[in-house]
């Protein structure tokens, strides 16, 4: 029994305790009157589901550098596959376990099976989509994944067994504790993947695919694996969304949803774990906070409801982020204890060049290299 093992055990217990305390707050009366109302609780659930989406998309987009904009499609597959399972077999399984329906134990077991089914279905879809499309690069890959996601959505829309255009009722088995658990699990697993050998391989593909290939990294294989894992977690998010929201409609999985997840990781900083989490929080909360904007009476125009402008402001923020901070809030750095305790004096060899701009030498060389590479491509 070594030290890391104990550390992760303690970390797990603390995390579970925290989740449990927060889960008590999910009703107004809960936690000795410190609970939050239904609206905030709902928002919190969606933030956590979005964290799963953002961190999983970050694996393929941020760490592997393969720009996919079809995440909503895999989320849809996870959601619908698991919802079909729960609706069709859920009651039978529950009665087999505890002789009644709606018990915590039996619903949890059904939910766990549903998560497994959703993740598996999304992973298989990821494999089918990934193998052909990951041969493409850059914006072509982006468009191909977008096309696949739209096809998935339209196919689901045409399956009458899952409600088609009228929507699909799903039992609400996902409680806060389970959603939180899967979010923590997603973050931990993806964090560990990124720090493993495989993560190094993925990052090498992002930095320079050709060089990675030359160093013996099987780039195709790693790209597909990364895409499949990313899709599987999108499927998990879909399962949780379906069993929390209790209602599925293909409108929830339009490509605007994929855009949203992209925006999360872009604002947070592609290739940053904490960035993706922060991005998920910002993107979910911001439009809701902007709802509070006041109405202002403009002479000649009447009352302007600034709250209606929230999505416009949201889009503007995205554009401005790209113009003024294209690497996102965190770039590919992480925010955490090690960042707070980082050495304040710059290590040797990073003295600034380029005048006031202060670009460290290594980055300056890299930027020049990239610029010349761009030129060659043109």
């Amino acid at each position, binding site marked *: 029994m070594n030290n890391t093992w104990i550390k992760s055990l303690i970390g797990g217990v603390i995390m579970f305790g925290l989740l449990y305390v927060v889960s008590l707050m999910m009703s107004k009366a809960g936690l000795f009157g410190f609970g939050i109302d239904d609206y905030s609780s709902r928002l919190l659930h969606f933030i956590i589901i979005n964290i799963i989406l953002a961190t999983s998309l970050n694996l393929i987009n941020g760490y592997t550098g393969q720009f996919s904009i079809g995440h909503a499609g895999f989320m849809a597959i996870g959601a619908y596959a698991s919802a079909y399972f729960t609706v069709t077999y859920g009651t039978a399984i529950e009665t087999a376990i505890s002789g009644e329906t709606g018990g915590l134990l039996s619903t949890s077991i059904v939910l766990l099976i549903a998560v497994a089914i959703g993740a598996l279905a999304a992973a298989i879809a990821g494999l089918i989509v990934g193998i052909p499309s990951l041969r493409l690069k850059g914006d072509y890959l982006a468009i191909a994944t977008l096309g696949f996601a739209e096809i998935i959505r339209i196919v689901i829309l045409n399956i009458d067994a899952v409600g088609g255009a009228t929507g699909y009722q799903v039992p609400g088995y996902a409680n806060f504790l389970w959603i939180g658990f899967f979010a923590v699990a997603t973050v931990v697993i993806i964090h560990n993947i990124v720090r493993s050998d495989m993560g190094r391989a993925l990052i090498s593909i992002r930095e320079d695919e050709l060089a990675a290939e030359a160093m013996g990294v099987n780039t195709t294989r790693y790209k597909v694996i990364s895409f499949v894992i990313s899709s599987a977690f999108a499927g998990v998010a879909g399962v949780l969304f379906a069993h929390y929201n209790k209602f599925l409609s293909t409108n929830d999985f339009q490509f605007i949803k994929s855009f949203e997840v992209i925006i999360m990781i872009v604002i947070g900083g592609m290739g940053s774990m904490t960035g993706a989490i922060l991005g998920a929080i910002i993107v979910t909360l911001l439009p809701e906070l902007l709802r509070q904007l006041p109405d202002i009476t403009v002479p000649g125009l009447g009352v302007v409801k600034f709250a209606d402008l929230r999505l416009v402001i949201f889009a*503007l923020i995205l554009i401005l982020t790209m113009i003024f901070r294209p690497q996102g809030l965190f770039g590919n750095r992480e925010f955490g204890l090690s960042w707070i305790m980082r050495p304040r004096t710059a290590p040797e060899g990073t003295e600034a060049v380029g005048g006031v701009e202060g670009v460290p030498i290594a980055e300056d060389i890299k930027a020049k290299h990239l610029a010349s590479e761009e030129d060659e491509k043109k």
Partner: protein
Amino acid sequence: MDTFVQQLINGLTIGSIYALIALGYTLVYGILKLINFAHGDVYMVGAYMGFLIAVYVFGSQASIFNFVVVLLGAMAIAAIIGMAIERFAYRPVRKFSRMTTLITAMGMSLFLEYLFTFIFSGVPKTFPLLIQNDNYNLFGEVTISTTQILIFMIAIILMLGLEWIIHKTKIGKAMRATSHNLNSAKLMGINTDFVIAFTFALGSALAAAGGVLVAQYQPKIFPLMGLMAGLKAFVAAVLGGIGNVMGAVLGGLLIGMAETFVVGYGHYVGIPSTYRDAVAFAILILVLLIRPAGLLGSNVQEKV
């Protein structure tokens, strides 16, 4: 046979609209290697500008003169908006990676959609009919409407005009040079910033023309109308070979026809008409996997 020809005419009509939008994608991609996600929304903006002119300037009166003014007015306003988008959103990020530009384009698309939803609400507006619409019987059961003839004619005029600008004028020469190699063009003394702005203006004007024309054909306009149309037009551009002007036209017509035939004949082979929107994407994926350069695109070996 009659239904087939009828479907063909309907497919070509909607295909001409896609072709007009696809031209804008292809022009911009040819020069900046940027998928201008906001282009479909410029098409929507064009339709709304036409709507404003038609309703507030002409009081929805139908006449050929009014139609021409609405068309040209919408094209001019959209051209200015297109240049503004390029100037204020794309130019500042041009020096960053291509992904940054792509995300900016997505942001711009959302911005236009939400802004127009804010101004005009999401409820569809009915575009006034500016030209008396009659149906002419060609043969058998086949009919063609005035609007369809109009769409064909204007689309052809605009495409020939574009062809003339690209191949016979000085700015067209500069555009070709810039799309060939931006930096060399700059070294040769071409004001590439101006060329790029001009390209955006040109593409946006064509998209706006598409918007006004489609509003004569299917008179409901709404802020999200550019989403699907834009994506399909993009597929058309990829199908024809992105960066290739004739390819965009060919791709647009093919996508329009494919879509109409799926609606008309799909049920014979078990494809319900609800798959209409999926056709374009299926074509896209096939093209990308089999011939990424597109039908008319030159097969450039990727440099490593």
